[in-house]
């Protein structure tokens, strides 16, 4: 067997470089493929994802009543508003709102207001959904932690909270049933 001189003294640089780069690349690709499952396992598992959507039956709600449901580990507020409450929400001038948004954009059907019950200040659960709870100065919701007042559209009106109460993604699956959340 003959050994080429350049293979011994390292003059065959291109071939050796190729082997080094190929080895390094394989290690990098292989490492990434091994690493991904160990990272992805921290993302929500199938049983958690299965609870990404919930169905809520609104039929039992009378005008003026509210209800709470659990959605993705957080409270979901639904209020069947009276005509007076709807009118109150729609007559407000946009310029008086800290986070301006029309009530028409916040409720697919004016009657039913669907909100995430998480104060946009520091995450407390505002009062005002259950009967007898304090509703704040604007007849909507009141956060007891730091005194944020929300109106009958769930918009922030007074207090430290910066934004309106969040409207989750939902769609009507029948006249009185909604499916909240997007499947993931």
């Amino acid at each position, binding site marked *: 067997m003959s050994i080429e001189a350049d293979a011994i003294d390292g003059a065959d640089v291109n071939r050796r470089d190729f082997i080094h780069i190929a080895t390094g690349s394989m290690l990098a690709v292989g490492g990434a493929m091994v690493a991904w*499952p160990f990272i992805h*396992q921290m993302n929500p598992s*199938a049983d958690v994802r299965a609870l990404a959507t919930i169905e809520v039956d609104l039929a039992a709600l009378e005008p003026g009543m509210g209800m709470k449901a659990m959605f993705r580990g957080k409270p979901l507020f639904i209020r069947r508003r009276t005509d007076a409450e709807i009118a109150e929400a729609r007559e407000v001038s946009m310029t008086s709102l800290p986070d301006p948004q029309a009530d028409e954009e916040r409720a697919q059907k004016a009657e039913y207001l669907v909100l995430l019950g998480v104060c946009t200040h520091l995450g407390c659960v505002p009062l005002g959904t259950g009967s007898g709870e304090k509703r704040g100065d604007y007849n909507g919701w009141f956060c007891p932690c730091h005194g944020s007042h929300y109106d009958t559209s769930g918009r922030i009106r007074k207090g430290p909270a910066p934004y309106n109460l969040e409207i989750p993604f939902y769609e009507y699956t029948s006249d009185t049933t909604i499916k909240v959340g997007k499947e993931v």
Partner: protein
Amino acid sequence: MAHNYQSKYQNPVINWIDTRLPIFWLVDTAVGAGHPTPKNLNYWWNFGSLAGLCLVIQLISGFVLAMHYTPHADMAFASVEHIMRDVNYGWRIRYIHANGASFFFVVVFIHIFRGLYYGSYKAPRELLWMLGVTILLLMMATAFMGYVLPWGQMSFWGATVITNLFSAVPFVGDSIVTLLWGGFSVDNPTLARFFSLHYLLPFVITGTVILHVWALNMPGSNNPSGIDVKGPQDTIPFHPYYTIKDVFGIAVFLAVFCAFVFFMPNALGHPDNYIPADPLATPSHIVPEWYFLPFYAILRAVPDKLLGVVAMFASIGVLFVLPWLDTSPVRSATFRPLYKKFFWIFIVVCFGLGWCGQADTDMPLIPFGEDEQAIAENIAARLPADSRAELLANVPGDLKVLETYATRAGMSEAAFERLVEKEKVTFDVLHLNRLLTAYYFFHFLVLIPLLGWFEKTRPLPESLSSPVLSPSAMPAE
């Protein structure tokens, strides 16, 4: 590590750090270019770094599993199924961990046999060897407790059987077992503490591995010829020569490992462990995981409960004193013709013990016919006095003749056949098991000490370089 150490690295940042905390120096001298290694290491020397890789695989997959597992008797089994079905890639991570344990033992067993063959346990590497045996013991404890965590039938009954080993301890045995269980049987407290210990022990293993590598770095690696390194001409730097050789070994290892993880992930496990633990029903055939089988066989070989447990622990304990049992000054089996033969016999015995560990003890292997004396005595007891004396005075070696006596004694044909069946003499699994167990200890306690005195060893080469460079060793043109 001298005081006023001044790093020799060119890079100013590395130099600055290394002068204050010589971690670059440490890595370089442990597994880097600054670590001179015998130049003749063969592929059996890959299994040390492979064992290190296995430990890392177990640590990473293990702490990830702990994120999703619930150590509670009511929820553990379901949480493992949750990992298998719901957690993203949970099945893969669990199969990596379960098969990783088996592969860890494969690698470590080969690593140990390598040490036995090439005499790596002899001076000045006794402490290195003993730390290795300690790691094996820690691994066995860790693996056992890990196997309990899925809380299947094998988990539960394995835990029951193994913890009951300690009941063999005189006087305080039952108290020890109660202490281990945290109750009156294997139950939720047992599971919770096993989970805690299963998480703790790998850190103890890691610490012992660091000591093991440290103890390795003092004398340096042994080598296939077993003779000491005489100087720089006998060594090559660990990096890049052995790092690249280890990487190649790792690639081969991972190919085999992945074949198991992806194509036969349950081949090394037991299907009964997919049945939830039931304290009211023991599975008909309890076997430990395969890597415990030889030790389990040694346990079963001894008819006495306490002595069985003692023998099982002694089978590993004997490894601790091996450096002093071996009286031969020659390390490598290459130059020990007799030891080399006995080594391979010992390998076969270890595999034989493993086979015995999973077989039914009363399975017959070699039939020796029937015990005529016992049959005759049984029949004679039913005969009148004169015929009894005649039969016993002259026991016939023929079953046909015995049967005529049986008929005379009023035995039915079926009863006679049952009697013959009962008195069949065979060499069964338990006999083989005892033979191999005896040989296991004979190998360490008798053969190895004696071989050092009687064996005529082959002449050792002058140095690692000389067998290669001497004219007689040069290949013919």
